[in-house]
């Protein structure tokens, strides 16, 4: 079988091709800036060239003289609408046109609207701002930062976890390390540009914009515009990559909506790649100090993880990955502390595995150092410290297949052939290194609604306001309906990405497959119940059979006895043309308000470290081989193997692709990705795809994903653990470990570049 479609093992679904694959290869998948709209006007943003101060004057005359210019939306024009809010669906509390204060470089100062894209761009570039400029604070160590404790600043980060007496245990430890690590600023850079298209029909507003959260945006946009959420529709049928960047709504959306209202015409604004660095969210730079103490037998007795994260002045964005790192191994004692460092920057936001990517990188790099200090094989070191319960609340893991992942990946990788001596493995002019690390991601789930209709012709229509960001959620939702209703996938149409559909939670935190499939399962089972009741009723074709003896397959209800009834005939006998069910799924432990909050666009998350009965995580193990040129120190990653266990796998094809994409992201984070900041001006320097490096085809060679079977009915009714964010956790530490193995150089600050290996 071909690599893209792994043969399903236990508890895994078929590798069906994506239901929207044909649309995507023929150019018929319409992303939000593709939908043709008549009489459209084009918007272009003008942004600030300073990071801190005030706009004293805006010169608009030259811009207004551009032929084709229709309007300029700027200070004063947003006064009748409310400012954005930070948190939930909102990226930032900065209302760029509500206030002449500049909080960060690249802040929106105006939107020029014109008949053509070219005229709008020309006009936007002719808008001149005059400033009262102050010296900005760029990042860590810049004068003027303010450092505050993170705990309690975000509903997602309530406390600094701890257990036992770290100080005493660390003081007593026979072997210890105390090291510092850092990760750089990173921008998501999905290939689709950020855009907003807005038009009004009377008092009804429609916005086409790539979004991971159409319901949340509908409510938040209505709040800003002071209109009824029922009058706002967000449409986002296809999303050209998201990775978190399209989760929170940015201030641009309301500005474009206001422009469309003023003009009485549809307005489309596509943000340039360069402007997106300042007008969207990003992953902020982090710093870490890790202390680990262990006995000579390799048992860890003390673990401390301190983290520092940059955020903007007004908004306390926190990632706080210590919740996961503090629960990873059998530490004995744990001490953690996270701080926020405020600077004159745009507000960061979530980016693929927000807490785990930086924090687990630091932990796993430290674990490798510790294994070296102990003279122990790094896999063995993790095996020794495998916990029975998590160390903070002493709760069990709902399931934990980490060691099996290590075993399967190590076997496939050929770890046994690794010579542990530093620099011992060579191939001509290449130094060869091998390393490994753990991947972890919390398994969460949220309330979700779905509508499913089965017609007498055997067609199924599935509607759910989730988001196809490339994960394959449309396909796996269809697959769930196909399985439960016994209808082939090509008879199922799946509608997503529209706030007029039944609401789904934000597509973030790897919750979509679990949440959506649980709702689809409920709706399908309600349809089954009705069908079964009709078929087994007195005088029905399967009278006397019990529901447990029945199955739906191939358009028939089939009894254990072998008797069967066509669904079509059952529906006809019921005298209906279709059965339609609307299901509202709420996870175990949901509050009484859980569904209300789903409709309000503020869904509650359950699972991860939040539940009473157990903690819920997906795990994986990644092994990489690096080759470093003896002369030039060029670093290549010719081989990477990852094994992952994530409960039920709905579709081995889409699951493998997501994990593969994650692992390649991990390689990029290890070796390439970093947004450089000019400290003098608090300005991003490499604001394009030429200088912001991401992996390209030539960077990736031999990549293997192993799906490890795992059954976990405790996580949610679908038994699914999300895996879209699992694959890129740990990768960078595995690369750092391999680089150390090849060269003896321990690189603690990402990305690992040639220059660090030359010195």
């Amino acid at each position: 079988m071909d690599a893209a479609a792994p043969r399903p093992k236990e508890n895994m679904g078929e590798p069906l091709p994506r239901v929207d694959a044909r649309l995507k290869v023929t150019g018929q998948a319409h992303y939000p800036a593709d939908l043709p709209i008549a009489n459209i006007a084009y918007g272009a943003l003008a942004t600030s060239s300073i990071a801190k101060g005030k706009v004293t004057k805006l010169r608009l005359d030259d811009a207004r003289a551009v032929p084709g210019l229709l309007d300029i939306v700027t200070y004063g024009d947003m006064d009748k609408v409310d400012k954005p809010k930070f948190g939930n669906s909102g990226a930032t509390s900065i209302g760029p046109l509500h206030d002449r204060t500049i909080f960060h470089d690249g802040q929106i100062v105006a939107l020029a609207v014109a008949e053509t894209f070219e005229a709008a761009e020309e006009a936007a570039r002719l808008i001149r701002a005059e400033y009262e400029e102050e010296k900005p604070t760029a990042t860590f160590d810049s004068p003027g930062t303010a450092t505050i404790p993170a705990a309690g600043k975000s509903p997602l980060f309530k406390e600094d976890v701890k257990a036992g007496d770290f100080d005493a245990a660390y003081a007593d430890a026979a072997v210890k390390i105390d090291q510092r690590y850092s990760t750089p600023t990173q921008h998501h850079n999905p290939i689709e540009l950020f855009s907003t298209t807005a038009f009004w029909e009377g008092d009804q507003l429609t916005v086409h914009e790539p979004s991971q959260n159409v319901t949340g945006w509908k409510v938040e946009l209505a709040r800003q515009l002071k209109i009824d959420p029922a009058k706002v529709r967000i449409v986002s049928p296809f999303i050209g990559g998201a990775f978190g960047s399209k989760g929170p709504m940015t201030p641009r959306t309301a500005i474009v909506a206001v422009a469309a209202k003023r003009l009485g015409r549809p307005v489309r604004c596509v943000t340039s790649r360069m402007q997106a660095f300042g007008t969207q969210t990003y992953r902020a730079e982090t710093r870490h100090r890790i202390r680990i103490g262990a006995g000579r037998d390799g048992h860890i007795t003390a673990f401390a993880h301190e983290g520092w994260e940059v955020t903007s002045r007004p908004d306390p964005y926190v990632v706080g990955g210590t919740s996961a790192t503090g629960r990873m191994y059998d530490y004995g004692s744990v001490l953690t502390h996270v701080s926020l460092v405020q600077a004159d920057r745009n507000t960061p936001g979530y980016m693929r595995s927000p807490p785990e990517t930086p924090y687990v990188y630091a932990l796993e790099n430290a674990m490798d150092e510790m294994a070296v200090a102990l003279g122990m094989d790094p896999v063995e070191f993790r095996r020794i410290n495998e916990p029975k319960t998590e160390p903070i609340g002493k709760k069990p893991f709902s399931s934990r297949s980490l060691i099996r992942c290590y075993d399967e990946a190590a076997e496939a990788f050929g770890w046994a052939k690794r010579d542990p001596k530093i620099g011992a493995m060579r191939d001509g002019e290449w130094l060869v290194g091998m390393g490994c690390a753990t991947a972890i991601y919390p398994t969460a789930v949220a309330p979700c609604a779905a509508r499913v209709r089965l017609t007498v012709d055997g067609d199924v229509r599935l509607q759910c306001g989730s988001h196809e960001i490339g994960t394959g959620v449309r396909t796996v939702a269809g697959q769930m309906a196909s399985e439960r209703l016994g209808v082939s996938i090509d008879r199922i149409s799946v509608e997503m990405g529209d706030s007029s559909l039944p609401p789904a939670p934000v597509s973030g935190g790897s919750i979509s497959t679990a949440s959506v499939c649980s709702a689809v399962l409920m709706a399908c089972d309600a349809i089954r119940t009705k069908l079964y009741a009709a078929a087994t009723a007195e005088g029905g074709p399967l009278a006397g059979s019990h529901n447990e003896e029945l199955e739906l397959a191939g358009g028939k209800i089939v009894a254990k006895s072998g008797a069967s009834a066509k669904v079509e005939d059952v529906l006809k006998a019921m005298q209906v043309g279709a059965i339609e069910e609307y299901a509202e799924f709420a996870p175990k432990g949901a509050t009484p308000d859980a569904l209300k909050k789903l409709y309000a666009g503020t869904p509650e998350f359950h699972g991860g470290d939040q539940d009473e009965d157990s903690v819920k995580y997906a795990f994986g193990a990644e092994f990489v081989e690096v080759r470093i040129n003896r002369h030039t120190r060029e670093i290549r990653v010719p081989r990477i193997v990852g094994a992952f266990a994530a409960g039920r796998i709905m579709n081995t094809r889409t699951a493998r692709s997501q994990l593969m994409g994650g692992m390649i992201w991990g390689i990029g984070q290890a070796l390439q990705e970093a947004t450089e900041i000019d400290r003098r001006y608090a300005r991003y320097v490499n604001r394009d795809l030429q200088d912001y490096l991401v992996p390209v085809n030539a960077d990736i060679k031999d990549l293997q994903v192993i799906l490890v079977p795992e059954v976990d009915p405790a996580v949610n009714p679908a038994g699914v653990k999300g895996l879209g964010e699992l694959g890129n956790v740990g990768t960078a530490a595995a690369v750092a470990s391999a680089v150390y193995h090849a060269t003896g150089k321990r690189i603690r600050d990402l990305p690992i570049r040639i220059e660090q290996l030359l010195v």
Partner: protein
Amino acid sequence: MSQPSALSTNGLSRRKFMAGTVSAAAAAPLLASRAEAATPVAAEPKLRQPVVTSLRINEQPYELSLDTRTSLLDALRDHAGLTGTKKGCDHGQCGACTVLVDGKRVLSCLSFAVMNEGKDITTVEGLASSDGKLHPMQQAFIDHDAFQCGYCTPGQILSAIGCVNEGHAESENDIREYMSGNICRCAAYPNIVAAILQARDETKGA
């Protein structure tokens, strides 16, 4: 600054053309006509002197009235209604906008539309045959799951066809090198290589 022109979006009016495109597009039925009906007809826009440009796209002739600064990419998307070609950077850095011009792959964001008069342009919309049969490269991309979000995909497919026709798909390493101008942020790279290997020989004959 040049004089505002009396000539509006002449020739094939963009507004009319877009409305026509929409009525044929099942994805957004009625959208254009409703939006248009809701909007008072705007006064004739004053533009920089537009140029009527004849393009041959997917074997069809197009007459478009364009700002001379309009890129081939924007002409395709905003004026010809062919939005299968994607904009990922507008700077020649991502490959999403790749089309074939006279059979060779070209970054349409780096080419002014007016420079392409008389040339044969192929976009993703022109690859499948009229009976709906996919080009072997399109089918291979489906078979090998050579995309996730699908945004880079039209550019990848056109670039892959160009790569094969250049003779740069003879080995996996060659494919990786010569496809590295097309960024896939979802990182479907190994699957893209597998797809090109599958479709290579059939593409050469196509």
